[in-house]
């Protein structure tokens, strides 16, 4: 069902003086409290009644697709169901209202949550330790590269300033490398869509700092020569970095640590069911091998036994009976990455998700994610090109190049046509190496019925486009607006509401 297409005026155009809500007692006038030269002249914001506010944002929500409303097969984004118990736990008053500067003894439960989550992630992904500090995946990449930089500086190898990135990598990888002053060398994928260890060996050398990869890669293919790749990089004296954006493909089944990765991040807002919230807040824990633990950002959660000795930190363990502190004093720490310790409310959500699944559930989660992706691939493989026709992992890429050649209908058009059918579009035009790319990731939480419905809709759209290209070219037609003039948006930027000039001007 398309949402109602009513116009929603800006919140600035609906308010009126005299419609203020009574949330707080009236205070004194500002002018009675501070010298007037310290105060602002006016505050040009509207007063809206609460009903008008509720109706405004409820209507805006009707014009927004979420996982809660539609199937959302957006590749590389892991749009799985977000269980509501997670939010309820994050909203427990004792956790929600805990101040970051509260003393450790008043924050034991929060620190226990962080510690248990760190231990669970270490066990799942084969790392010695995790830091929950970074705010999102890209922030975690930056953190990890700063760790690598500090590690090499400490070893007297500051000449290592090259990051090798496969051409299938997420755009954040090269952007993060540039932020730490590293030079980016892009590595071409081989004919099988994977990194070729021989080509890599030619690129790696005494100036190589880090090789950043994801596995499965963004084509959805398992890098089956990853052990050789790691050997090449380690022989060159460099570090292997695992971009955890695709961790939902292997959680509980294989471990980046076992593949030879030395550093990694996770997007808790992908694999661990934290709501994406329209683009954040996310959370990007960084995991490291033992040699890199001293460089993790501050603060670090420390755990102690009842007798005050440091608690053993190998594998997961129940936090009962332990006590905790935040340590800001590690001498080799790269510093701190953000205002406060972590996106804590998301740590609560991620740990609740881990509790809801257990080891077995997390393992099955990845298996079903892979099964669902392969099922959709097979279901559409005779109507679009599948450039890498083999068992893929949690996502796969299709190409509309043949369709475009025959009919002029592009990947973009297929995505827009899906919107009319009540599906979110796949990721389009990424990865960059596949022309007219559609990247599809169904996730494990979708039923066979939902997948069958999507496959049928996709096939119908392609079939219709082959006989009548216009059926796809003008889409979407049932959404609150049609295709948007992006050139105008960029050439004549209108980025904010402005008050009308006073009358007479």
């Amino acid at each position: 069902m398309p949402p109602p297409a009513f116009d929603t005026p800006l919140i600035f155009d609906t308010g009126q003086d005299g419609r203020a809500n009574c949330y707080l007692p009236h205070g004194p006038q500002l002018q009675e409290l501070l010298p007037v030269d310290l105060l602002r002249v006016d505050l040009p914001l509207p007063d809206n009644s609460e009903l008008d506010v509720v109706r405004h944002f409820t209507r805006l929500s009707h014009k927004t697709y979420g996982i809660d409303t539609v199937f959302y097969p957006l590749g590389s984004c892991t749009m799985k169901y977000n269980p509501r118990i997670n939010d309820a736990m994050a909203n427990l008053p004792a956790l929600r209202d805990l101040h970051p500067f509260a003393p450790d003894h008043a924050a034991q439960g929060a620190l226990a949550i962080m510690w248990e989550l760190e231990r669970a992630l270490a066990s799942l992904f084969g790392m010695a330790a995790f830091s929950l500090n970074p705010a999102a995946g890209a922030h975690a990449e930056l953190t990890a590269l700063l760790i690598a930089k500090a590690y090499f500086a400490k070893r007297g190898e500051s000449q290592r300033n090259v990051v090798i990135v496969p051409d299938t990598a997420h755009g954040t990888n090269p952007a993060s490398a540039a932020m730490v002053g590293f030079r980016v060398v892009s590595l071409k994928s081989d004919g099988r869509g994977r990194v070729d260890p021989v080509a890599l060996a030619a690129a790696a050398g005494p100036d190589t700092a880090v090789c950043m990869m994801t596995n499965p890669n963004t084509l959805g293919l398992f890098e089956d020569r990853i052990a050789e790749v790691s050997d090449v990089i380690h022989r060159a004296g460099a570090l292997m970095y695992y971009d955890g954006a695709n961790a939902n493909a292997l959680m509980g089944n294989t471990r980046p640590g076992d593949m030879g990765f030395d550093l990694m991040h996770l997007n808790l807002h992908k694999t661990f069911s934290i709501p994406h919230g329209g683009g954040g807040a996310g959370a990007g824990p960084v995991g490291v091998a033992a040699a890199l633990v001293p460089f993790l950002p501050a603060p670090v959660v420390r755990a102690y036994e009842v007798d005050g000795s440091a608690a053993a930190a190998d594998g997961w363990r129940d936090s009962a009976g332990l006590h905790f502190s935040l340590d800001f004093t590690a001498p080799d720490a790269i510093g701190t990455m953000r205002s406060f310790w972590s996106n804590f409310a998301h740590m609560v959500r991620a740990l609740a998700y881990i509790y809801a699944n257990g080891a077995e559930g997390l393992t099955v989660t990845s298996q079903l994610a892979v099964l669902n992706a392969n099922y959709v691939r097979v279901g559409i493989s005779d109507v679009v090109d599948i450039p890498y026709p083999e068992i893929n992992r949690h996502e796969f890429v299709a190409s509309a190049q043949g369709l475009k050649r025959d009919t002029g209908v592009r990947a973009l058009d297929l995505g827009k046509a899906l919107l009319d059918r009540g599906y979110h579009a796949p990721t389009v035009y990424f990865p960059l190496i596949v022309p007219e790319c559609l990247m599809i990731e169904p996730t494990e939480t979708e039923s066979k019925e939902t997948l069958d419905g999507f496959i049928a809709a996709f096939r119908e759209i392609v079939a219709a486009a082959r006989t009548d290209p216009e059926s796809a070219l003008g889409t979407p037609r049932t959404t609150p607006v049609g295709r948007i003039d992006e050139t105008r948006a960029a050439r004549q930027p209108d980025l904010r509401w402005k008050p009308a000039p006073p009358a007479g001007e």
Partner: protein
Amino acid sequence: MLQAVGVGSLEDLMRVPEGLALRSPVAVTPQLSESEIADRFAGFAARTTAGGYISFLGAGAYRHYIPPVVGALAMRGEFLTAYTPYQAEVSQGYLQATYEWQSYITLLTGLDVANASVYDGATALAEAVIMAVNASGRKAVLVSRAVHPNYRAVLRTYAEGLELAIDELPYRADGRTETISLDAALADQRYAAVIVQTPNIFGVIDPLTAAESGRAAANGTVVIGVVAEALSLAALATPASWGARICVGEAQSFGNAVAYGGPHVGFIAAGSEHLRRMPGRLVGKSVDTEGRPAYVLTLQAREQHIRREKATSNICTNQAHCALCATIYLAAMGKTGLRDCAALNIARTRELRDAVTAVEGFSARFAAPVFNEVAIRVPGRASDLLRALEERAILGGLDLGRFYPELDDTLLMTATELTTGADIARLAGALAEVETRAAARI
């Protein structure tokens, strides 16, 4: 489904090369039912004491009243479970809300443009410094020591990567930034930016003067204003009015919980001359094929997914949902509610200062006007006093000695509209009791 895919079992589907199978079993918690999870987290909650204490903590994270309407709207599934609005036709609602957020931030700061949010106040500052460095090509910045210590720490971390020099301006005896040598420092045209925070870490209202900002601009230095308590923007002279050309800060106070440090929500506002160097997402208003008004992510050529290593920043995911909470909060509070709230914060902090300094041995450390925090000099070490207060179920504030060795006898105390007269009386009573006992021991 396995048959359709052409494999015999899930194990076959997941098969990996020899040597990459799990070397040891995954060991995490046993699986729990939802009711058991609730019980488990009730246990974690019982081990924290957020509600059992009265608190005078602030310093960059503030407990304010959040009208229930904020959560009721923000937790709607369409908002909560949406991805970044790349498919604009089915994201008009979220895009409009983000356009409204950008509008609120420009109206509050007085600047021309604002982005869709960044991680938090500290990373907003680091991103602003990158903007200034890219604008000037200079590799040094000048930052007031009265800028939040955590923000300066993050700036130092980022500076390691960017290879930037950071010089500091001292603070004066009245708690404001010392600018007497500012003109001389800027004259050699070495600094990409000069950075002050208002209200600063001591709660003191601490802008540059418009004349100082003008001279900085004349030397090619970008004036960056930091606002760690966004509520102050509802009351104080706008950063634009005193000459900031980039204003960054923390908007957690607008409808977001303190949540042991996150997620919070950073903002970046700037003069239009900095638009193309702005990091992160921007929502613009345009039209659709039928000429109807429509919102869309725009100027994406700045961003990592297009520009890769040449992007203005690596930021991808930001704090959209926290910014949505802030937008709903601002809409519900309105100008009247925001002004009342700001005035209550100032008034309650004045009550707090008066009650505390009436206790023998306690005095205001700085004389300059404050917003909702006040630095109090205490008898003895602030850390000792805090422990004594904790025994009385009071979190008395932040020990400034933690960041400023010369201020180890000074507490930063915060009062918001949620601080009651009874809280203040209980604190003052406890201070008097602790000090009387200390005196008796001597």
